């Protein structure tokens, strides 16, 4: 590993700037809010003073205790994990063929195809969601078609809008480029020669994909999955705009703590739990991936 040859100076030159930036503009502010989780909410917003009227530090574990007071918070959290998982899997299935197509295209079209993937996302988020409300509306073509089919089977019409379906479709839509781009970045470096050699040796298309392409693309899959799953866990705007009455997620709950309830300590607690859980799941997936990848490589 060339890392061993790198001098201390080299190491710091590469690690230093991003580390410094993140410490100043992320770690320090976040620590302030982590501290807030041990404080009490101010009566009219914000936080209660750190030093109470009696001159003692006003720190408490009350907000953490509330988390376990009732299972409802864990239920909402579990629902968010499910939504995020479904979103990630759906994104993977949609993004993979797209990334393969772009990676295998002639060089002169590649950049354009990539740009075409991300172009829609430079329009504003709200109007894209509104566009989905139009597509999923009860009088639009899609809903009429689906309910027509259901009616043929004698079933009740289902609303496409203001439902979990609408939330999931929109979640997948909003996160798709963040799966396509990492996958593409990985697939682009695959050597066609490997696949040609395998084909010469008699492997069919499925075998070539499953034994060569997919395992090699795993780092890209994990990168994409991380960049979809983790943000999707914390989303709140989509349920707010087109979710049904049962689609409140942990992101909505956290937002409520900072806004309607003005309970910043509890909001911090929920945020910390969410962050720790997301990072742990990502770490777990990476660990499993390393083990699994090694097994596939051995096979």
């Amino acid at each position: 590993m060339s890392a061993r040859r790198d001098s201390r100076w080299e190491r710091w030159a590469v690690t230093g700037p991003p580390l410094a930036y993140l410490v100043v503009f992320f770690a320090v502010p976040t620590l302030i809010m982590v501290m807030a989780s041990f404080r009490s909410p101010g009566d009219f917003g914000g936080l209660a003073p750190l030093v109470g009227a009696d001159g003692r530090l006003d720190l408490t574990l009350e907000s953490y205790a509330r988390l376990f007071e009732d299972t409802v918070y864990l239920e909402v959290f579990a629902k968010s994990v499910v939504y995020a998982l479904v979103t990630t899997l759906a994104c993977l299935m949609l993004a993979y063929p797209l990334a393969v197509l772009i990676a295998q295209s002639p060089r002169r079209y590649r950049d354009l195809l990539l740009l075409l993937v991300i172009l829609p996302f430079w329009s504003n988020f709200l109007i894209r969601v509104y566009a989905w409300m139009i597509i999923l509306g009860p009088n639009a073509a899609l809903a009429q078609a689906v309910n027509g089919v259901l009616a043929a089977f004698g079933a009740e019409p289902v609303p496409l809008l203001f439902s979990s379906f609408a939330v999931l479709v929109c979640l997948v839509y909003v996160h798709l480029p963040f799966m396509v781009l990492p996958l593409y970045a990985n697939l682009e470096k695959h050597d066609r020669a490997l696949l040609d050699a395998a084909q010469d040796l008699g492997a069919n298309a499925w075998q070539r994909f499953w034994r060569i392409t997919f395992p090699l693309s795993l780092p890209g899959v994990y990168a994409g999955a991380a960049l979809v799953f983790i943000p999707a866990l914390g989303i709140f705007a989509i349920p707010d705009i087109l979710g049904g009455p049962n689609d409140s997620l942990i992101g909505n709950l956290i937002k409520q703590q900072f806004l309607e309830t003005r309970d910043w300590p509890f909001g911090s607690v929920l945020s910390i739990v969410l962050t720790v859980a997301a990072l742990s799941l990502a770490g777990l997936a990476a660990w499993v991936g390393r083990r699994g990848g090694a097994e596939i490589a051995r096979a």
Partner: protein
Amino acid sequence: MTQRTLAFPFLLVTALALPAAAADKLHLYNWNNYIAPETVKRFEAECKCEVVQTYYSDNEELLAKLAAGAKGYDVLVPTGNTVEALIKGGQLQPLDRAKLPNLKNVDPAYLDTAWDPGNKYSVPYAMSTTILGYNDAKMKELGLPTDTWAVIFDPKHLARVKGRVTVLDSSAELFAAAFKYLGYPANDVDEKHWREAADLIKKAKPYWAAFNASSYIKELTVGNIWLVHGYSNDIFQANQDAQAAGRKFRIVQGMPKEGAVLAVDNMVIHKSAPRPDLAHRFINFMLDGKNSAELTNLIGSGNPNLDAAKYIQPELKALPAVFPPKDVAAKLEQLNELNAAQRRLRNRLWTEIKAAR
């Protein structure tokens, strides 16, 4: 990237970061579309200054930002109970009455509130009520009443309009409506009554399409949703849009007979306002009847300014949700602030409601 392409973003940023020509600036932090553009232009001409507007869409967003220490704003436009929170949080500076001669134009019924006695910090700007909005053709077809909260809380009525009703995604507003329906005051703090209201809401929830405060007006106007719990301004606008689009139904404001929440938005000055002098001039300007009326004519908001009456379009004055007659006004209540413990309880119940199946 080449030098040229690197230079461009930096130049752009520098150009934007450089302070503009030293014009006098008034920083107004307001709801979007809550002041008529003509009014702003007229004020700018009169004071020879520039009005820099930034926006928020929720009182709580304003509170959170100020609680975290943001400054640079002169005039804010919070709703009644938010003014209470701002006063108690020490975020406002007192108004100089001498600079506000037009204050005499305001209807005394809206002055001297419990949370700002003597109007030390705030003056009323505009009002709205939180009521029912409905598609008149559909409601007639279904034979549903439109003057009672029962139509969004009673499963007997809801069964006929299932999946076509939305309620506001605001625990304060929805609980207040539930209290009014149950016959309690909107500002009830009895825990038993809170739980009663929560149970009522849970029973009605399966019939509702969504808790929505952001896109319900659109859906009402197009005809996808037939009945909403919403703000009178929005419902007024919805009808204007529906008529402009040539729809075959009207969107009507329904004032429930049990009463409703009244929201009075006020002009206040932030404690570290850079230009309190301009701020006072602006407030006095907006207290003039003609200027005040422009907003009402634009969006159908209620108006606490008596001098504005002669400038307001007559069809607006006929709307009970906008200009409530005495008997309706008696049943309207402004929401009070809750303390931290009460807010926690409300959020706890709200989370249960949202998670309930």
